[in-house]
């Protein structure tokens, strides 16, 4: 199979996965307990008011008609009105997704920045102090819930040291930069809005760091395991015994081979950061998609639940696909058969 045939096949597979997910989530959201209209209208709303709004929202129609309407809207680029914000869900997603994406990019960069050197050092210096420190970090990073670490960091950096802001994406008194990508750091950089840039960097440090902890731990563990496995292989020992510079050997050969398993999960880690960021987004009042979806579930905001989930599904599909393509770049043995 040629490369482009493989790409086409994968892209075509997106369609049934996406539609299957939409139908599943659409039906599941309707199974959530509670009448969203009652919640919209409040405790004293008379039945006549509830009936009127239920009809206006089309919630009185059979489920299959509601699904049909959803798909008609979907092909027109609309995801239906959010019961919470009174806007089309696509507008809400366009507003909140960039914040989550920005946060996830920073988190994965931090994870790579810390995880690769630490994993490398731990593998090379197996059972030494460095390795022990790295293992403690890795186990702690996986074990500690991120909301707990978030609160600790808020306490230290926001409350006692007062050097980092504890909530939001930018100082409320600094006008946000002109919206281009929706990512405040990038937008402020593009527009040369330095106060906004500095403020947004200061705001993203804590949430991105908290989100990076678990991926860092996984990178450290995988990379360490890869290094330990490969440094005992004959090719490594042969090159070492032939007097090859150990620095070059580790960097050019050992690291590359050992990094392949890590690379295979990198995409999933990135998608997971976006999908499971709602706790951290809640603690740091970060205006991201995770928080939006969590709110939607709490308030039975049907369209927002379905719309948000579609985005998460697309992220997973695209990232997995992209990682499959990049994988070949690192491992030439891969064939698209």
């Amino acid at each position: 199979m040629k490369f482009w045939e493989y790409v086409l096949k994968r892209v075509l597979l997106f369609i049934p996965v996406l539609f299957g997910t939409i139908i599943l989530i659409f039906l599941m959201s309707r199974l959530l307990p509670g009448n969203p209209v009652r919640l919209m209208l409040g405790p004293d709303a008379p039945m006549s008011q509830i009936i009127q709004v239920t009809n206006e929202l089309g919630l009185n129609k059979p489920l299959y008609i509601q699904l049909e309407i959803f798909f008609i809207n979907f092909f027109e680029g609309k995801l239906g009105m959010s019961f919470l914000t009174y806007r089309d869900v696509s507008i809400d997603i366009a507003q909140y997704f960039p914040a989550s994406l920005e946060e996830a990019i920073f988190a994965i960069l931090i994870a790579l920045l810390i995880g690769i050197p630490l994993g490398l050092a731990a593998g090379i210096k197996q059972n030494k102090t460095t390795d022990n420190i790295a293992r403690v970090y890795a186990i702690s990073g996986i074990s500690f819930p991120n909301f707990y670490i978030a609160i600790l960091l808020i306490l230290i950096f926001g409350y006692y040291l007062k050097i980092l802001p504890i909530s939001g994406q930018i100082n409320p008194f600094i006008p946000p930069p002109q919206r281009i990508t929706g990512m405040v750091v990038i937008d402020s950089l593009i527009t040369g809005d330095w106060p906004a840039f500095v403020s947004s960097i200061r705001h993203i440090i804590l949430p991105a760091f908290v989100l990076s902890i678990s991926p860092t731990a996984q990178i450290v563990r995988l990379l360490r395991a890869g290094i330990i496995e490969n440094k005992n292989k004959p090719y490594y020992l042969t090159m070492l015994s032939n007097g090859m510079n150990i620095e070059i050997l580790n960097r050019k050969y050992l690291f590359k081979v050992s990094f392949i398993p890590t690379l295979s999960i990198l995409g999933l880690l990135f998608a997971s950061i976006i999908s499971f960021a709602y706790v951290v987004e809640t603690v740091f009042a970060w205006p991201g998609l995770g928080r939006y979806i969590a709110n939607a579930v709490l308030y039975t905001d049907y369209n927002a639940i379905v719309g948000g989930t579609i985005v998460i599904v697309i992220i997973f599909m695209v990232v997995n696909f992209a990682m499959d393509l990049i994988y070949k770049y690192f491992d030439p043995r891969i064939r698209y058969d």
Partner: protein
Amino acid sequence: MNRKTLYGVIAILVAIIVIVSAIAVISMQPKKTTTTTPITFTIGVTQGTKTLDPAIAMDFTSDVAVNNLYDSLFSVALQNGRTVVVPNVVTSYTVSPDGLNYTLNIRQGILFHDNSTLTAYDVAFSFNRMLTINQGLTYLWSGILTAGNVTALNSTAVRVHLLKPYAPFIATLVNVYVVNEKLVMQHLLFNTTFHFGTYGDYGITWLSSHDAGSGPYTLVYYDPTTKVVFKKFSEYWKGWGSNQPDTAVMEVFTEEASVKMAMESDTIDMTDYTLAISTYEALANVSGIIVKKDPSYNLLHIMMNCKMQPTNNLYVRQAFSYAFDYNTAITKILPGDVQAQGPVVNTMYGHNDSVLTYNFNLTKARELLNKSGYTPSQLSAMNMKIVYVNSLEWEAQIAAMFKYDLAQLGINITLEPLPWMQMVSLTSNYTTEPTFFILSSTAPYPDPSYYLMRYTMNATGYTSAFFYKNQSLSNLIMKAVTTLNNSERLKLYGIIQEDIAYQAPCIWFANDLHKIAYWNYVHGYQFYGVLGKDIYFWNFHIYKNVSSSVVPSSNVSSINYNTVSSSGLASETKFYLNIIKSFFIF
């Protein structure tokens, strides 16, 4: 791109991030505000803003936003410690002898934020729009007023024709805000979820995130889940005094711990009223923070299912009312609250002080149970449940205490904490309704009718006394709210309260104490009892980092329970150490 280039790009990106972050962390300390810089004010709230549309807004944060962006027909003020309705956009009114026709005279010289003039046509448009959309607080006029019955007589007078006399009508007008008709009509959308004929969506979509008001502040930035930023409207008709905020921010922190820390670190100037009692107590111990406590319109009660056994029995309901330990509830669980007396909050104008008030009396409860014909073992076998919001600590404590109280009578009930949505879904039918349901409700206007209308035959909301229906009582309530003579109406309100209290459809256990924390440099805060009306930025004067000679002597006009203690920080550390300890324990 070859590998070297790829690594190079990654290395440069990482280096940029590290360097910029380090510079930012080291160099950017929070800036101190001086009087020469614009005066800013930030309130930290625990829930997002649902909409900015005044026809739909009915939750706290939306109400606060609307109250600052728009002008209401009438407003509220404090007179002799009691909340009263005062003119605002409407300067005066006349009412026809039959109580059906109101003529509202509109204030002249009010400008919208686009500098156009507010007229009676805008008022009529706004009121009719609200009635047509039929969401938000429109239920206040259900069966009393329909869309189209509000007409502008000329640019300064509006006529409202009611379907039947409704005495609290003027009081309800504190919830009618005026939108700029011309601006709204420019932003109608068609082919959306809501259709109102030629009016399209009546501007619902646009107004949910835009401002078309004449209030003291204009909208600068709006994100429903994180923050709303307001800017002073310099042409505001009431004018401006010294040190009122130039910019106001409502910042959302969904985690209570984050609000607390933001308050303690002076990141925000004020909290909202939704925090736990322990949090207010901790904040009161921080030097410079004031925790203001006021009696509120919030009535806390346990509703009983009046249509299902055993609580369809009057004696059982009365027995349960005597089996509730009111004193423990208001001293240990909700310190500062006062015991409720009947179905209307004690502080409300028209409250009947001599109404039957239940106390904790197990002997009396046993006598009434004997009269009811039920034995404790029979009642225990009925699998009675008390449901409450699973995230509210105080409700869990009240439920547990009540379970303990009933256990002393030999009756066993089940505690059932649920998410609010699930609780609401149970109330749609009396067969799914639990026996006990903990609820708090606040009047959106200063009149007892709000609390009494839920006992009428037509009431269907989930506060409608859990299917308690009594035709003669319903008739009496309807007679009261249509009686224009004030003293006669108050007399009827009194009789109704006595009747309802005797029937005991609910255990009214407390009148809540409204609590709010703010820094002592914030002056002018007033609590009015009506949801959202107290956070009116125009009332606030901020004296942060200014010379003490320019600061007025007192910033608390009523009760102040604040205690200043240097041990605040120590207790804070202890609080978090305890959290950390508990984490390791569990």
